[in-house]
């Protein structure tokens, strides 16, 4: 159930799959609310015992002074601190806490819409001193003696960030509005992530993508993953906070299984694009989901 017809964007964790995985690791429902941490620096103190897990870029994360690697469940005791350092690679991390972040649900979601300033915690990014309500949790998933779980999730799920990633895409409806040279450059040259990128989209510098026509297009839907090309010829890769409609040509769409990698792009990173079929995109997504189901069953066995 969505609210796109009212102009409300998808929202939620930019790596929604990663957050599902970390939620399972701490014993939550996979859709529980977590935190998205951009460029690290988060320190949080817990008032009662919780299990935490995170995924994302290459961050140094510690519970008290014990390192917590990505996608391992860690036990934080009351009064202890959880610290995120700065990322070596990538820029974002997702943190799941047993019980979930218990903010009220707005329009069917606990996520924050920063542009429209609603949802999440007072419709804004967190600040020093904020106190977040946590939900009740059923049971600790790790035995109390075990500080950090030995079991973990597949590496690609835990740490999707790459220094110079390749993103797979399917051609967009306006593919044929671009000349052959442009289409070749899209798949053969590197693009550099510009500093004015955010949760709405990643702005890319690099070869100018040139259209053959200059017709004004009728505005229609865009989606997270859409690569649109404004008149400047510099593509924008849209992410989950993107607006719902757009009038720029859509040269392609990054496939869903690669959006977690896209969510790690930070200023100065180089990114390549590689074309796949729509069928491949669906097959990859369904394969990953099958693996996820097995992972969920595995976790269920661990905790009994």
């Amino acid at each position, binding site marked *: 159930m*969505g609210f796109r*017809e*009212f102009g409300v964007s998808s929202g939620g964790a930019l790596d929604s799959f990663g957050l599902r995985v970390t939620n399972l690791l701490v014993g939550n429902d996979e859709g529980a609310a977590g935190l998205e941490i951009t460029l690290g620096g988060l320190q949080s103190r817990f008032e009662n015992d919780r299990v935490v897990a995170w995924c994302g870029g290459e961050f140094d994360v510690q519970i008290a002074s014990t390192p917590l690697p990505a996608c391992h469940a860690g036990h934080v005791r009351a009064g202890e601190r959880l610290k995120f350092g700065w990322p070596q690679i990538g820029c974002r991390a997702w943190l799941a806490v047993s019980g979930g972040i218990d903010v009220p649900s707005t*329009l069917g979601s606990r996520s924050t819409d920063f542009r429209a300033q609603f949802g999440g915690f007072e419709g804004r990014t967190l600040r020093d001193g904020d106190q977040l309500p946590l939900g009740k949790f059923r049971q600790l998933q790790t035995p109390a003696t075990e500080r950090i779980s030995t079991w973990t999730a597949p590496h690609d799920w835990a740490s999707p960030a790459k220094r110079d990633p390749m993103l797979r895409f399917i051609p967009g*409806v306006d593919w044929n509005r671009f000349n052959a040279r442009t289409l070749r450059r899209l798949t053969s040259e590197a693009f550099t992530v510009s500093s004015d990128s955010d949760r709405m989209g990643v702005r890319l510098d690099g070869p100018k993508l040139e259209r053959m026509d200059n017709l004004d297009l009728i*505005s*229609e839907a865009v989606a997270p993953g859409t690569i649109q090309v404004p008149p400047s010829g510099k593509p924008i890769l849209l992410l989950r906070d993107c607006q719902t409609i757009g009038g720029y040509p859509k040269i392609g*769409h990054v496939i869903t299984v690669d959006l977690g990698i896209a969510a790690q792009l930070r200023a100065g990173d180089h990114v390549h694009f590689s074309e796949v079929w729509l069928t491949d995109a*669906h097959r990859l*997504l369904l394969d990953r989901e099958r693996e996820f189901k097995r992972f969920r069953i595995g976790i269920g066995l661990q905790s009994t």
Partner: protein
Amino acid sequence: MFRFAQHDKITPMEIVPLGDSALIVRVREQFDDAPEETLDEVLRAFQRIRNAAIPGVIELAPAYTSVSVFFDPITAAKAIETPGELFDLFVERIRAAVAAGADRGSRRRTARFRAHLVEIPACYDPEFALDIDDVARRANVSTSDVIRLHSAAEYRVACIGFVPGFPFLTGLPKKLATPRRDVPRKEIPPGSVGIGGAQTGIYPLHSPGGWNLIGRTPLRLFDPDKTPPTLLRAGDRVRFRVITREEFESFKR
């Protein structure tokens, strides 16, 4: 190519992927040559696809000539053998949904799409109408003519988008069409009524924007705690009613 009959017109309907988790149903190719008819047709398709409750569909949104359909491939895949069939399955079901509705419609001779008429009080006070002089100059009329023309016309919501609750209104008197400002404003107050090209619209939230501001409404266009969260929906008819500054202030209270 699939075709379906509607109002004695044969309309090709094109369905194109929007990535791997959404698609666009292009009901018509053009908008400006027949905005009313196009909107009616798009909204009919929107409702038919919604009523069909196709498994895996998460949300739908109409915009100008098209309807976007967002879906969860994982849920949808339960009905198919191989991933290669997923998109085709949606295309088939959407076409069937739109066509089935069309058949019923022609038998019952259903009337045009039922549209609400929403009256929007608007104050054209100079403090709110920062760009009304530019609009007047371009149209070669007085500012009071701009107010008169803008508030006399009846508009229709062609699309809600850009930010939550922003209505793109079609039906602006041609005279008032004014290109967007060269340099967009960084911050536009909520309720601001603007003209951007051949359209008029209302900024629901604090946001940047390049439209020419000619007035402001005291009404709230987007409230996430309400159902539905927006004052307007695609297809609604809209009129602006001129209010004084005093009326504007008393609305706010």
